[in-house]
C-alpha cells in the first residue's frame, strides 16, 4: 500500500517538475501574465506534493491503524489535486507553445485575438485550478469530477486555435516552415498524448471498444490503463485514499472519452470491475462521504479550537494544523456526543468531548512527565474517537 502510494507520488513529482522544463519558448510583453499564471501554479503543486509526502510519513509513524488510514486519506485530495493540476498546467503550456509559434511565425495572425483567446482559455481553467489549489477535499473532489468535461472544452479550443492559424497561414501563403512550427506544437502537445484524437462531433457511445483483457483495459487497440495501474488505483480506492470518481476522471481523460463525459460521469463497467467497484468499495465510498446528505453535515474540530495554541506548541502546524482534523457529523449525533450520551446522571460523568479529550491529554502529559509529541496525541485521539464512534475521515475545517 505504502509502496504503491510512493510510486504514485514519484509519478506526480515527475509530472510536477516537467512543466518548467518546457518553458523553452519565450513569450514576452503582454503575454508575460500568462507565463506567470503557470509559474504560480507550479508553486502550489509542489506544496501539495510536499505536504502529501509529509502526511504519508506521519501516517507511517502513527501506531493506530485507523489513524494511519485517516492520515493517508488526507493525502488523497492533495494527490488528486496535484495530478489534475499538473495535467491542466501541461495543457496550458501547450496553449502557450502554440501562441508562441503563432506570434513568431504568423505575422498575419492577430496578436489581439490571440490575447483574447488565451484569456478565454485561462477563464475556463481558472475556477478548476482554484478549487484544486484550495486542497479542500470536497472542492477537489468536485473539480476532479468536472475535469473530463473541462479537458473536452480545452481540446476543442486548442483545435480551433490551431485550425484558425493554419487557415490564416494558408490565406497569406506563408512559408512551409511556419506551418511546420504550428504543426510541431500540436504534435508534442499534452492533449495529443492524453487524447488520442480530437473528439469527433458525432456522439460516440461511451465504452465502445472498451474490452477487458488480461493485459488491462483497452480502448480499441490502444492500451489506456495497464493492469498494474488498475491494481494500484484499486488499492488506493479501497483504502479510501482516492475516490472512484477521481480514477474515473483520469480514465475518461486518458481514454479520450471527454466528449461523452459531459453526459456520463460513469466509467464503463469493465473498468469499474477492474477497479473493484464492488458493493464493498462503493460502500466504502459512502462511508467516505459519510452517507448520503452527509456532505452538508456541519464540520467539527476534533482537537478543540480553544486550545489551538496548546496543539500548535506540540507540532500541530501547517499541514497538521488542527483545522485539518475536522469531521462531518449530523447535528443530532453531534449533540449526543457533546452531551456524553446525555445519560440522566450525566452530572457524575460529563463526558463532553472537548473537556474529556483535553483532560485525557493533560493527564497523560502529567503522567509522562513531559510534553506529548504530535504523534502521541494522535495516538490517544484515535482511541477516544473510536470510543465515540467518530469515523476517522478528516475534512478541512475553518478556524473560528
Amino acid at each position, binding site marked *: 500500500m505504502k509502496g504503491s502510494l510512493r510510486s504514485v507520488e514519484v509519478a506526480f513529482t515527475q509530472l510536477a517538475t516537467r512543466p518548467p522544463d518546457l518553458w523553452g519558448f519565450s513569450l514576452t510583453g503582454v503575454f508575460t501574465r500568462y507565463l506567470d499564471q503557470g509559474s504560480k501554479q507550479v508553486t502550489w503543486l509542489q506544496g501539495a506534493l510536499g505536504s502529501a509526502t509529509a502526511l504519508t510519513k506521519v501516517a507511517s509513524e502513527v501506531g493506530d491503524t485507523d489513524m494511519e488510514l485517516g492520515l493517508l486519506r488526507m493525502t488523497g485530495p492533495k494527490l488528486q489535486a496535484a495530478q489534475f493540476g499538473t495535467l491542466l498546467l501541461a495543457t496550458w503550456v501547450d496553449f502557450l507553445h502554440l501562441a508562441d509559434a503563432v506570434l513568431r511565425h504568423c505575422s498575419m495572425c492577430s496578436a489581439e485575438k490571440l490575447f483574447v483567446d488565451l484569456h478565454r482559455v485561462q477563464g475556463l481553467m481558472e475556477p478548476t485550478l482554484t478549487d484544486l489549489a484550495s486542497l479542500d477535499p470536497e472542492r477537489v473532489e468536485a473539480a476532479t469530477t468536472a475535469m473530463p468535461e473541462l479537458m473536452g472544452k480545452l481540446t476543442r479550443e486548442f483545435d480551433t486555435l490551431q485550425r484558425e492559424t493554419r487557415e490564416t497561414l494558408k490565406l497569406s501563403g506563408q512559408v512551409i516552415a511556419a506551418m511546420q512550427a504550428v504543426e510541431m506544437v500540436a504534435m508534442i502537445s499534452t492533449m495529443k498524448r492524453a487524447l488520442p484524437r480530437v473528439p469527433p462531433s458525432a456522439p460516440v457511445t461511451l465504452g465502445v471498444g472498451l474490452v477487458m483483457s488480461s493485459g488491462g483495459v483497452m480502448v480499441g487497440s490502444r492500451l489506456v490503463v495497464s493492469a498494474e495501474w488498475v491494481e494500484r488505483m484499486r488499492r488506493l480506492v479501497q483504502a479510501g485514499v482516492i475516490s472512484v470518481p477521481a480514477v474515473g476522471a483520469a480514465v475518461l481523460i486518458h481514454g479520450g472519452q471527454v466528449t461523452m463525459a459531459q453526459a456520463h460521469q460513469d466509467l464503463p463497467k469493465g473498468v469499474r470491475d477492474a477497479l473493484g467497484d464492488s458493493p464493498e468499495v462503493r460502500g466504502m465510498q459512502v462511508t467516505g462521504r459519510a452517507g448520503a446528505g452527509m456532505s452538508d453535515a456541519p464540520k467539527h474540530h476534533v482537537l478543540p479550537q480553544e486550545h489551538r495554541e496548546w496543539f500548535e506548541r506540540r507540532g500541530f502546524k501547517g499541514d497538521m494544523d488542527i483545522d485539518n482534523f475536522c469531521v462531518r457529523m449530523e447535528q443530532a449525533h453531534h449533540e449526543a*456526543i457533546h452531551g*456524553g*450520551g446525555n445519560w440522566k446522571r450525566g452530572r457524575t*460523568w460529563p463526558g463532553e468531548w472537548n473537556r474529556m479529550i483535553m483532560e*485525557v491529554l493533560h493527564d497523560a*502529559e502529567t503522567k509522562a512527565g513531559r510534553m506529548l509529541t504530535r504523534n502521541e496525541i494522535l495516538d490517544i485521539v484515535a482511541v477516544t474517537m473510536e*470510543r465515540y*464512534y467518530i469515523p476517522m475521515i478528516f475534512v478541512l475545517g475553518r478556524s473560528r
Partner: protein
Amino acid sequence: MTAGHPWDGHWKARLYERVRERGYESLTAFAEAHPTASLVKLAAELGEGEIAGVQVFSGLVAEAERSKQLTRLVRGQLVRELAECLPSGWPRVLDDANRFKVAKALGLWTGFTPETHKERVRRVGDALLANPPPAGWRPLSPDDELLQTLLPDEEA
C-alpha cells in the same frame, strides 16, 4: 430494533435490548463477564456499528451509581485501559516509550472516570508511578489484590 449508526434513535433502549438478548440481567453483568475487553470491544460484542463504546461506559456508570458500586467500576476501567495499552503487563523498564504507554493508560483512565472519583484516580496513577508494581503486573478484574489496596471500596 436495528440502527444504522450508534447515535441514531433510542440508543439506551437498544443497548439494553442487546444486553437482554445475550442473556444478561444488567450491563454490569455483561461487562464483568468480559473484564479485560476494551469499551469498543464490549460495544462491538453487543452490536457492531450499533453501539458506541462510550455508550456502554455511560450505561455502566448509571448502573454503578444505583448499586453504589462506582469504585468497583472505576477499578474495572483501569483493568480495561491497562489491557489495551500494556497487553503484556506492567513494563520491566520504564523507558520513554513505555512511560508513554503507561501515561496513555492513566490519562484515558481519568477521562473515563466519573467526576466524583477523578481526584482519587489521579492519586492512584501517581502512586503506581512512584512505587511501580512488579514487572508483568496485569490485573484481570476489579478484584485484583493490588488494585483493591490502591483503590478500596468506600461504599460498602
